[in-house]
């Protein structure tokens, strides 16, 4: 019945074979990279696409510069360092996937991730499961080094509580005790508001009102009218990114900053650059700033970064990436091993040297919660800079991390080490 067809090799078969061979050529580098073991690989996962792209790229510039410096000094334990980057696309599932890819396939020794706190926490579960040392450069939510801390996870940037603790006393002393909050209506905003309210209550101030704004709000006028009617001394603007920029633009249009003192907690160079000059007002906290006259090594760092970023100054994000990567080298030099548990024990309590910390106060990873005690730079936004067009912030005080952070016994962190 069924006549077997004689096997023939047609033109299409040849074409297909050629295409398959071509694909194999493209795939070959992946196969080879999976086997290479001479270089020491560090994986960086960040949302390089989406709303956090600008800050992620600055972290990458800092990280790349750190790798360049490390390799010039002989790498880590004599091995050349290679930085592998992966885009988490601001999606937790993708971030987790990329963490598994870096650890399982590329065999990275260290991981640094992520600007988005939710992804940072999810990746922390993976690195914890796989016992890989993990430094979070720029995800701020408290639990990462608080209630959800892990033995292998460390963090460079401040917690939201540290941010609130740095700005609140300054505002209270200088501008008054009646505060009004504009809070983005999601988990991050609520934590930030709660931290600031706690500080205010401790100092004896009052909250005269708050407006919860949905994420992605473009028109803040209704909230601003309410805020003005409440006659506060200080208006705290807590939205971040695009929402903050919109809110600040409208504050300037309404002239609210002429009668009420405008302030916020965290502010970033990237956001100030994106704002029109009239909106750059108020008291804020920077996590690092590039202009620190008299502080050793800062000027050289700024000059070196300018050469690698198309002339732009380093931001706090650049410093996060730089510090996270250097921490890996500092701790391996100290512990002389790649064993994650020993490294994590050595990194707890490690103090950063002046050429890495790039700020006046003592900077160290607390042994109890693995949070870097780094300074807060509190000051005013500058509308029209006189010298450098990117000099958009005037520092009033630099508060050491020990002052802004609660002691590591009170952050809710209980580290459980593997047996």
């Amino acid at each position, binding site marked *: 019945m069924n006549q077997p067809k004689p096997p023939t090799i047609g033109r299409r078969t040849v074409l297909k074979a050629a295409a398959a061979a071509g694909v194999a050529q493209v795939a070959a580098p*992946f196969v080879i990279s999976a086997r290479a073991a001479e270089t020491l690989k560090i994986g960086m996962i960040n949302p*390089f*696409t989406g709303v956090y792209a600008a800050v992620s790229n600055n972290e990458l510039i800092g990280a790349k510069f750190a790798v360049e410096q490390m390799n010039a000094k002989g790498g880590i334990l004599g091995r050349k360092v290679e930085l592998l980057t992966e*885009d988490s696309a601001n999606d*937790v*599932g993708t971030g987790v996937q990329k963490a*598994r890819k870096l650890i399982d396939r590329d065999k990275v020794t260290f991981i640094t991730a992520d600007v988005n706190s939710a992804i940072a*926490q999810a990746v922390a579960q993976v690195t914890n499961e796989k016992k890989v040392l993990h430094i979070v450069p720029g995800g701020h939510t408290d639990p990462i080094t608080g209630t959800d801390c892990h033995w292998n996870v460390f963090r460079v940037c401040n917690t939201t509580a540290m941010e609130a603790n740095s700005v609140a006393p300054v505002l209270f002393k200088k501008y008054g005790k009646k505060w009004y909050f504009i809070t983005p209506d999601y*988990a991050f905003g609520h934590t930030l508001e709660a931290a600031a309210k706690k500080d205010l209550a401790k100092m004896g101030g009052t909250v005269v009102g708050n407006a919860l704004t949905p994420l992605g709000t473009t028109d803040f006028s209704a909230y601003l009218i309410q805020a003005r009617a409440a006659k506060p001394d200080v208006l705290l603007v807590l939205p971040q990114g695009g929402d903050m920029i919109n809110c600040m633009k409208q504050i300037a249009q309404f002239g609210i900053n002429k009668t009420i003192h405008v302030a916020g907690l965290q502010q970033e160079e990237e956001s100030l650059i994106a704002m029109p000059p009239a909106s750059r007002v108020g008291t804020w906290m920077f996590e690092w700033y590039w202009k620190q006259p008299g502080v050793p090594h800062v000027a050289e760092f700024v000059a070196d970064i300018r050469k690698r970023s198309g002339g732009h100054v380093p931001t706090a994000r650049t410093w996060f990436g730089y510090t996270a990567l250097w921490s890996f080298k500092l701790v391996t030099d100290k512990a002389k091993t790649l064993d994650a548990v020993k490294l994590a024990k050595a990194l707890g309590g490690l103090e950063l040297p002046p050429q890495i910390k790039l700020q006046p106060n003592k900077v160290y990873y607390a042994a109890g919660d693995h949070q870097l005690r780094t300074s807060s730079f509190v000051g005013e936004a500058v509308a029209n800079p006189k010298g450098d067009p990117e000099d958009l912030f005037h520092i009033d005080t630099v508060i050491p991390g020990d002052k802004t952070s609660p002691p590591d016994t009170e952050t809710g962190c209980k580290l459980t080490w593997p047996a």
Partner: protein
Amino acid sequence: MTAAVDKAAPVAANRERARSLAMLAAIWGVLALAPFWMPYLGGYTALGTRVLVLGLGAMAVNFLLGFTGVLSFGHAAWFGLGAYGCGLFLKFIAHSTPLSIVAGTLLGGVMGAILGALIVRRRGVYFAMVTIAFGQVFYYIAFQWSSLTGGDDGLRGFQRAPLDLGFTTVDILYNSTAFYYFVLICFAAAAAVMGFILRSPFGRTMLAIRENERRARFLGIPIELHIWIVFTLSCFFMAFAGSLYALVNNFADPLGLHYSQSGNFVIMAVLGGMRKFWGPLLGAAVFVVLQDYVSSLTVNWQFFIGLLFVVVVLFFPRGLLGFFQQRVQS
């Protein structure tokens, strides 16, 4: 039809059956051996697990879209509900992986059944709009209800529990190959149920509705009831996939409920071939693998996925699988 073709019909049918059996064997062979061949092509086991889970989700979307002709743009809602149901069960109720999957599937499926009764009253673009709206309702609930769902930070603090088979326990938390096979078995079970439904008279009725709704109605088929049943089944499959997704990540986040995620499932289904049973799995594989590779090379990876989607829609309207099958047959 000529007489010659009529005579050749049984031969063609036999050949057709042999071909579909060979294809099934090839699909299951490739899937069953994935942990062994993937590392040589630069893959890794977790990638295979993700393809299976998202492929199952896309097949669930296609169950509705490809076989009944109804486009839902909010199916991520049931996917995400499955994930949250599974995660919340593991976190607060009991440390059991199978029960958590049941819990997640029930949560997503039952919610789908209830809201489906309202949604199926609409057709075409209105149906798609209403599904988006309900999907976004769940997205915002997950986003705002921080005390239960963790809000924007996502639901954390649960891990898949080892499987207790009575005589032995299987570690599916640290052993990624074991977890892959666990997901593969779940996937096979769901695919078998789906295939069984499609072969039943009920499945034929679905096709009849897809081909000509008015004619089906004149034949006395209760259209609304049928679409509601299909919608509900699809939601159960979707929630099942969502539960597995929570276990893959040990995490559930609101973005899993977002309409952009629904869009991704539709893209996978269309990319692979939306009238084919296995099309969405191929689409999911292409989507996930492309995302995984290209995003390591360039941050503009979404551009390339979009480009591929445009090319497929313009030149291969039957999807990749439809295109390949046509090639083989001609």
